[in-house]
């Protein structure tokens, strides 16, 4: 039995490598040629990339949330033991819940494309032609999934215990947090699987060519990027304001009521409240023990239900070739209805269109256009967060404006220009065969750049 398991594990190495490659290729979008070139030069390149990405993302999962602690030392003061169990419970409940959410966000951020590629099922197309039974194929699928993000999952399991150990030096708490980290990791994995499935359906599907589907594609991209970056921002803000937030609860005369309510919320409070019970078990009011246990059980139940659903969607990945079946009545294609139209436009406009459509189609290019805006916003926000210490409102406002202007006029254009130039390199396979004047290209880039840049300035004038 054990031998079998290790056999599956070692075979899954090849499949997970293929999945990773698939994800990298999809991410590279139109820059695949470059990626291939690197593989050609060094055949260990893929293997090394897998390892590096794994290690880096695991470190990120553990370390990134810790950075908030260093940048916001007041959180440490908050967590200093206080005599009142109600106050400790609510402080721990809120602070550690934020961490749990941030772990999940990072896992999703780092694993989304790999899992998306896995859920697209492309890597199983060939396996389906080999004599492998459905049952075995399913085992391969699980092993592949696990191998694709094993290190990340493990670091997710140890991240919270490490954090708790650093903050509280309480061994019992640490052990408990390790125990709840396991179902938490499973839950995160399931969420990742669902998101990966959604992504793969939107990004990797070939069947639907309607306008609507390409619009949803762009929308989903925008959503993923803004959520992943927005999440960070939100977390940062929460940490800056956490003192006030927590004191709202601790100073309120109804702290115990808040505790009861929060502990009933299965995620993320349920498991956290459950472990805070172990700070001093004898002191906790029985009602809180009851509600936290209920909250924790609810959390386990949710994990179980979601886990079952995730299993189902993994099984669908290895099924027969994906086919769309619809209830709408279908008809045969009538040749008369196809009208071939080619719209006339200037080279410049054609070029802008090309840039925008590539941006919509492959994530990397979309990032090139969206990232400058996002990063500028983040820079502005993080620079101006220090302003809260300045008492004069006018000076605050003025400095904020100054910072914004400097950022917008420097970072944004630099990133946009390099992004657009990068995109040019990517499309070189298509455009190098076309007789295009460099001037037309440059004109198009300039217009696009000014458009994005303008948009951004307008945004800030409001």
């Amino acid at each position, binding site marked *: 039995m054990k031998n079998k398991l290790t056999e599956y594990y070692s075979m899954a190495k090849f*499949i997970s490598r293929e999945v990773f490659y698939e994800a990298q290729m999809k991410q590279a979008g139109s820059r695949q040629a470059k990626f291939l070139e690197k593989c050609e030069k060094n*055949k260990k390149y893929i293997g090394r990339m897998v390892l590096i990405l794994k290690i880096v993302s695991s470190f990120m999962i553990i370390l990134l949330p810790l950075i908030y602690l260093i940048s916001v030392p007041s959180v440490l003061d908050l967590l200093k033991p206080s005599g009142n169990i109600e106050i400790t419970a609510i402080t721990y409940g809120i602070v550690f819940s934020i961490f749990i959410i941030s772990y999940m966000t990072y896992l999703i951020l780092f694993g989304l494309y790999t899992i998306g590629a896995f859920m697209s099922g492309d890597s199983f197309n060939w396996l389906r*032609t*080999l004599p*492998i*039974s459905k049952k075995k194929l399913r085992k391969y699928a699980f092993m592949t999934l696990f191998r694709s993000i094993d290190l990340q999952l493990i670091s997710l399991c140890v991240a919270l215990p490490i954090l708790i150990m650093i903050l509280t030096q309480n061994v019992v708490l640490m052990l408990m947090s390790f125990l709840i980290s396991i179902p938490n990791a499973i839950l995160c994995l399931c969420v990742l699987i669902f998101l990966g499935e959604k992504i793969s359906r939107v990004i990797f599907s070939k069947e639907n060519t309607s306008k609507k589907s390409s619009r949803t594609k762009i929308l989903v991209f925008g959503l993923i990027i803004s959520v992943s970056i927005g999440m960070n921002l939100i977390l940062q803000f929460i940490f800056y304001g956490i003192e006030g937030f927590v004191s709202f609860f601790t100073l309120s005369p109804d702290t115990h009521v808040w505790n009861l309510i929060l502990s009933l919320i299965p995620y993320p409070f349920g498991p956290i409240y459950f472990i805070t019970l172990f700070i001093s078990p004898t002191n906790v009011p029985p009602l809180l023990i009851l509600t936290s246990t209920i909250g924790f059980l609810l959390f386990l139940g949710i994990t179980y239900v979601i886990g079952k659903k995730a299993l189902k969607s993994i099984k669908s990945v290895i099924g027969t070739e994906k086919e769309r079946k619809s209830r*709408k009545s279908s*008809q045969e294609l009538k040749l008369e209805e196809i009208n071939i139209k080619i719209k006339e436009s200037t080279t410049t406009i054609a070029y802008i269109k090309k840039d925008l459509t590539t941006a919509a189609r492959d994530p990397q290019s979309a990032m090139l256009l969206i990232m400058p805006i996002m990063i500028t916003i983040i820079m502005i926000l993080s620079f101006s967060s220090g302003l809260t210490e300045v008492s004069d409102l006018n000076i605050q406002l003025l400095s904020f404006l100054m910072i914004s202007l400097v950022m917008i006029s420097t970072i944004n254009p630099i990133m946009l220009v390099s992004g657009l130039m990068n995109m040019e390199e990517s499309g070189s396979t298509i455009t190098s065969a076309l007789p295009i004047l460099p001037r037309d290209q440059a004109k198009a880039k300039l217009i696009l750049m000014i458009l994005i840049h303008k948009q951004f300035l307008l945004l800030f004038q409001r």
Partner: protein
Amino acid sequence: MTELIIEVQNLKKYFEQIINDQNIQTKAVNNISFNVNKGEIFGLLGPNGAGKTTTIKLLLGLLEPNDGNIRVFGLNPEREDIKIKEEIGYVAEEPLIFRSLTPKDLFNFISSIRKLDPLKTEKKVKEYLESLDAIQYYEQIIDTLSHGNKQKIQIISAIIHNPKLLIFDEPLAGLDAKSVKVLKEILDLHKENGGAVLFSTHIMKIAEELCDRIGIINKGKIVGIGTIEELRKQSNKIGASLEDVFLRLTEQDKSVMEIIKKLRASFNNK
């Protein structure tokens, strides 16, 4: 006494697609019947989009048919696809093998999946790699190989387990002259040893030289089947080349002339 390897009866397969927000149905395979015997090379010919690849995928149980009967080695591919796949060497239209691996890893992977004898497989892989001039790519990542070399690796990976039936979907695409010759020899040897071959191709000359029987598909229907002589009779073109027979049977012979005329006219107007 001939032994039936593949039996197909009244096979139907429809696809649905959304085009311009309309649900469009394609009858990719529309009532096809044919047999492939033991010790026979059977060619599937047909214009682009005729339904050759779809038929082949149905044989392997990769797609579910809408209607009809399929037996491969007397087994139903929908239910006993594993047993069938054990005895089949399949080369897909587009390289399906793991492209992130090197041929070395790939052959290792296949031999563990198919539980082959390592020593015998090693010898075979070496022979085939040498005969197809691909031994120098043994440790390069497959995706970085040229199209033809990828195809060679895919072909080798489909024959190292000594299958009884070879199903090749356009195996010659991208191969150079020498490799085509070698591949033809491999197919012939396979046939002499009692195996069967089903392959689709667009190259009429190869089909003429290699195939014992040919099935011509057009728009999901069989429009001609049999030996070349029989096909000539069916198309009323005694002594004609397979190309002419093919164009006649797929009703493209007249349209080709018209298209050429039209093209010439529009080109001269330019």
